[in-house]
């Protein structure tokens, strides 16, 4: 299987099963339409008949020979050999956990998938004893995995920061005994950031995700306090201070775009103008009936904006101005292995979320859905049948993924989105799929553009996280 497309003046061909990416001239791009999994050494007559008026015979012959060489080398129409690995997929140790340390929030963002902080379960904070049980759970269920990831999430985690600190201290105290290494992340809206919290976060958290939607008017329209006041002025100076003290650990300024700011390139650029260079802005995931929702019919405008953002990034990079956009990050050589790509995010299998009540769910987005409650930390229950079901969910068990060119890049998409909007974790959420495919096309095109300009070391070499585009 291949995927060929034209973007920003580049003719691009992705060979799906080898991962090869080829940049073609017009002749090769046109002849590619006459090639297939069964291509032979000789130029098909139809090529001469249909392209003979456009290209010289000699040019057709040498171009076809080059395409055939790729085919022979397993870099064009390479066979799909992966289903054998998908069939071998079994339960994996649990090594990632989202701890919803707070089901309360001091903002009331309109689009919040957590029902404005409490996941529809009532406002509450996780007791330390429950957080400790979460740490014990991941250690006990992580088998031989050494690296364990714990994300403090909510709601707003800083509303329960004392428990965050004590949980980190508790986990660190167990690392040597169990030969584990905890990697902590915290996701915050920034309202309660102060010097002490910044110092702790910068010392203990491998990654910090700082929520901001971009321009002040964009952010303050939806990211508001309970009395309707915008959050921008309170959080931006705090983020700037935190990031200035961050040294080499990861961070992201992470926003959401909605129907209200389909010109989100301006929000990315605004974030960068504030001094940030690790940026993420994602499409809102919401009921299509809501005003701010990104609907299927909005996709052409969003696609155009992604292209604009991609071109802007290329121009900036060529001028030596570096910033990283999370959804355009792609490493064509050193990315995740094919096994990882078969089942993607690992939710419900390698990754679970826990609530203040100790309930265990496949991921943070399933929280509150009783049908997907996997167990509870307090009574020791854990539904391994459900875990198996998620473990066996791969791009080969999702009917729309099996023959999709993007299957090894999104790895089957978000199971929670699939369930929420299509009613089945194995049914791909169409809007999300189209967005993901467009982002991938842009990401690969950026690689092509930077390769052409000789700027293949497409990072600034200092604080780059370096699987970056």
């Amino acid at each position, binding site marked *: 299987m291949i995927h060929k497309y034209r973007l920003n003046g580049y003719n691009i061909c992705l060979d799906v*099963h*080898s*991962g*090869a*990416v*080829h*940049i*073609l*001239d017009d*002749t*090769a791009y046109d002849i590619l339409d006459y090639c297939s999994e069964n291509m032979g050494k000789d130029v098909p007559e139809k090529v001469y008949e249909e392209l003979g008026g456009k290209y010289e015979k000699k040019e057709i012959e*040498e171009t076809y020979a*080059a*395409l055939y060489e*790729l085919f022979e*080398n*397993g870099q064009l129409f*390479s066979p799909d050999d992966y289903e054998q690995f998908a069939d071998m997929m079994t339960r994996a140790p649990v*090594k990632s956990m*989202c701890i919803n340390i707070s089901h309360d929030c001091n903002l009331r963002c309109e689009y919040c998938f957590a029902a404005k902080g409490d996941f529809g379960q009532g406002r509450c904070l996780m007791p330390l004893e429950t957080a400790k049980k979460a740490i014990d759970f991941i250690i006990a269920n992580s088998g031989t*995995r050494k*690296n364990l*990831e714990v994300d403090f*999430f909510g709601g707003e985690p800083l509303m329960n920061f004392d428990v965050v600190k004590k949980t980190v201290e508790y986990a660190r105290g167990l690392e040597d005994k169990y030969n584990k290494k905890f990697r902590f*992340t915290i996701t915050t809206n920034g309202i309660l950031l102060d010097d002490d919290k910044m110092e702790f976060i910068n010392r203990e958290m491998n*990654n910090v*995700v700082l929520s901001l939607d971009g321009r002040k008017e964009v952010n303050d329209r939806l990211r508001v306090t309970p009395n309707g006041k915008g959050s921008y002025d309170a959080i931006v100076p705090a983020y700037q201070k935190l990031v200035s003290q961050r040294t080499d650990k990861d961070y*992201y300024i992470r926003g*959401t775009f909605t129907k209200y700011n389909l010109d989100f390139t301006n929000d990315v650029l605004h974030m960068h103008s504030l001094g940030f260079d*690790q940026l993420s802005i*994602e499409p809102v995931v919401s009921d299509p009936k809501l005003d701010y929702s990104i609907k299927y019919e909005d996709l052409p405008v969003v696609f155009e904006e992604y292209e604009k953002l991609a071109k802007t990034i290329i121009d900036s990079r060529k001028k030596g101005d570096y910033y990283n956009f*999370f*959804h355009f990050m*792609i*490493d064509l*050589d*050193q*990315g*995740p*292995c*094919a*096994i*990882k*790509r078969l089942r*993607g*995010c*690992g939710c419900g299998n*390698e*990754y679970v979320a826990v609530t203040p009540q100790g309930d265990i769910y496949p991921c943070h*987005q399933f929280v509150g859905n009783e049908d997907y409650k996997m167990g509870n930390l307090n009574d020791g229950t854990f539904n391994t049948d459900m875990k198996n079901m998620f473990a066996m969910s791969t791009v080969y068990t999702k009917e729309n993924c099996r023959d999709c060119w993007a299957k*090894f*890049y*999104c*790895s089957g*998409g*978000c199971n929670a*989105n699939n369930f929420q909007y299509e009613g089945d974790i194995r049914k791909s959420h169409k809007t999300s799929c189209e967005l993901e495919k467009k*982002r991938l096309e842009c990401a690969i095109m950026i690689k092509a553009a930077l390769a052409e300009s000789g700027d293949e070391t497409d990072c600034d070499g200092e604080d780059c*996280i370096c699987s*970056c585009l």
Partner: protein
Amino acid sequence: MENKHIKTLNQANLKQSAVKGGCGECQASCQSACKTSCTVANQKCEKKQ
């Protein structure tokens, strides 16, 4: 590979990675920056760092 008509940008090593991969030590994608959409191909391989 590079010739007059085609430039290949990468090593196309996905198949080799299937044979040697699957150690499970790499980051879960939702632990990075997304939380609402799945992008796996931008994660780092733990063995290659």
